[in-house]
């Protein structure tokens, strides 16, 4: 079967890719209809799951070692077992399709081109956790995606794959699409839940509000990313143990890396986790940097991940050995990126070459977090705006040299002092840019240097300084 798949011109997967979740993305003759999905073996795994014991399905997912693809990399099967065993309340499954972490663009393609794969993953997962209502929380900026999903749900319902007694079993399941309204914080699972309850999406504090125990309407709720839920289908197909052989130990399976920024061929690449290094990703899969450019920095896991500088060296364990590696040697897996002081996060890799001003970059990032803070905690609400104002000044050439220290102290006073992980997401970029590019930032506070930015005109206009 696999040999016969053809991809659209210019969209042919790279030979280092292992297409599983993205098997049907850009595929010739493929469309989002149920008929097409079924002609390719679709929904066989949902049927298989329904013939199993729910606990057995969870066991397979545990055995697969699947780690969440939404950002935190938490083992999916383990999360499912956190539903209190004595629970008598309804259980909900929520698919997190908020896809709002800057640099990340993978769930978009699944939803627009292969919605039934997601529905099948959700059916299997709902059955495993005992949910009879599941919601897909989709960001409002995917209007077409929401329509496609609604059509897919209607088709599945008509066939008896959703609704009462699905696939002629005794299991009932409804899936509903719920559209967000343009707020990044709705990607954070407890903010998402509040939003789904019709409230402002103010995240809840953990503990006690771990969704698996106290989630939607204070009922046990499993929140998983779109990509994670799709993996569940393939785990069932391969068996957990076999799936775990993909990728590397503790970092199993495939994952979609999204590359943007200063590379010749930005795009999405589904690879076995940890089998491609950052250097290979940039130079091989993405066709390298632009002519005459050198690598300056990489944000490896969405804008919240700490930046890596091109000439950094890292001491990490590889097998039983302690080795020193450079940034291009980093295998793109959860554990190594963490050992290198950053994170694999959401899989969004942003590459920057030597033409980029780091002050300009961190200022752009600061604007994002200042805009998106939900405002619930003072350090985050005030701090994210202060950080933005300070880098506005640096970019405008009106900062003083100790502004960089002030910036650092603001960031340090957000991290660890907030209700949700947005606080870290906002402060890690600032802390790491200062840590790694302090000289450049300090130099930029000198008004004499104010003219040397890459695109100061547009940037200044965008922030209202011109």
């Amino acid at each position, binding site marked *: 079967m696999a040999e016969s798949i053809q991809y659209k011109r210019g969209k042919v997967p790279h030979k280092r890719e292992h297409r599983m979740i993205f098997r049907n993305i850009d595929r010739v003759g493929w469309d989002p209809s149920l008929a097409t999905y079924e002609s390719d073996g679709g929904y066989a795994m949902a049927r298989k799951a329904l013939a199993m014991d729910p606990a057995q399905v969870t066991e397979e997912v545990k055995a697969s070692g699947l780690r969440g693809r939404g950002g935190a990399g938490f083992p999916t099967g383990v999360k499912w077992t956190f539903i209190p065993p004595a629970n008598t309340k*309804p259980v909900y499954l929520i698919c997190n399709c908020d*896809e*709002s*972490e*800057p*640099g*990340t*663009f993978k*769930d*978009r393609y699944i939803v627009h081109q292969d919605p039934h794969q997601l529905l099948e993953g959700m059916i299997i997962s709902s059955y495993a956790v005992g949910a009879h*209502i599941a919601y897909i929380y989709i*960001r*409002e*900026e995917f*209007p*077409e995606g929401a329509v496609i999903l609604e059509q897919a749900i209607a088709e599945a319902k008509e066939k008896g794959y959703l609704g009462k007694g699905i696939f002629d079993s005794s299991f009932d399941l*409804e899936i509903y699409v*719920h*559209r*967000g*309204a*343009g*707020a*990044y914080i709705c990607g954070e699972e407890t903010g998402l839940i509040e*939003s*789904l*309850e*019709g*409230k*402002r*999406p103010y995240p809840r504090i953990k503990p006690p509000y771990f969704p698996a125990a106290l989630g*939607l*309407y204070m009922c046990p709720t499993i929140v998983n990313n779109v990509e994670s839920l799709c993996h569940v289908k393939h785990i069932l197909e391969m068996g957990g143990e076999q799936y775990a052989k993909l990728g590397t130990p503790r970092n199993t399976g495939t994952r979609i890396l*999204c*590359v*943007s*920024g*200063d590379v010749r061929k*930005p*795009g*999405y690449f589904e690879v076995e986790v940890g089998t491609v290094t950052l250097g290979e990703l940039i130079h091989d899969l993405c066709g390298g940097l632009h002519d005459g450019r050198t690598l300056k920095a990489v944000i490896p896991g969405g*804008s919240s991940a700490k930046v890596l500088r091109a000439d950094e060296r890292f001491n990490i364990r590889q097998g039983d050995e302690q080795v020193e590696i450079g940034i291009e040697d980093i295998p793109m897996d959860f554990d190594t990126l963490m050992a290198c002081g950053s994170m694999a996060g959401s899989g*969004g890799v*942003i590459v*920057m070459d030597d033409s*980029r001003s780091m002050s300009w*970059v961190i200022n*752009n*990032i600061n*604007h*994002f977090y200042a*805009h*998106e803070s939900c405002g619930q905690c003072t350090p985050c609400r005030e701090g994210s705006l202060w950080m933005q104002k300070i880098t506005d000044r640096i970019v405008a050439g009106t900062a003083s040299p100790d502004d960089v220290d002030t910036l650092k102290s603001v960031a340090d006073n957000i991290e660890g002092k907030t209700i949700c992980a947005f606080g870290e997401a906002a402060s890690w970029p600032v802390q790491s840019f200062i840590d790694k590019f302090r000289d450049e930032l300090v130099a930029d506070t000198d008004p004499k240097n104010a003219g040397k930015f890459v*695109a100061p*005109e*547009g*940037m200044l*206009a*965008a922030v*209202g300084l011109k």
Partner: protein
Amino acid sequence: MDLPEELLAKIDEVITHYPESKRSATLPLLHLLQRQFGFITTESVEWIAQKLELEPINVLELVTFYPGFRQSAPGKYHIRVCRTLSCAMAGSEELMESLCREAGIDRSGVTHHDPIAVGKDGKFSIEFAECLASCGTGPVCLVNDDFHEAVAPQDASKLLNKYK
């Protein structure tokens, strides 16, 4: 408030998606009414509150929180240009400038609380949006529900011409 039968039926259907709590239907209802009227009116807020047995403030606080809801009329075509890093690196600020120039929109009065600028003839309105999850094909923008990728700043008029 006069709403078409079809919309009323749709509203009643949407409420059934939330058997546990009607309040959950606030966001979907806001979307439906914004689509109907172009923005959220005070009347719409009160209507939703009554429909879902809430206080109007429960509805209004969502309108003022979420960037996706507007309280004044946008243009016939509302443009959202991605402002975030990868698109900015690809020229989204320049795209914003050329779109404004071509559409005759003045963004000088734009603030955090009032992010939308409308052209004089009311045909186009524009605002920056945060990462639209297509960072590999920047600069990107939405025009109403249509998504456009790799829109070079010099192609601004070509894009606008599609909406004559």
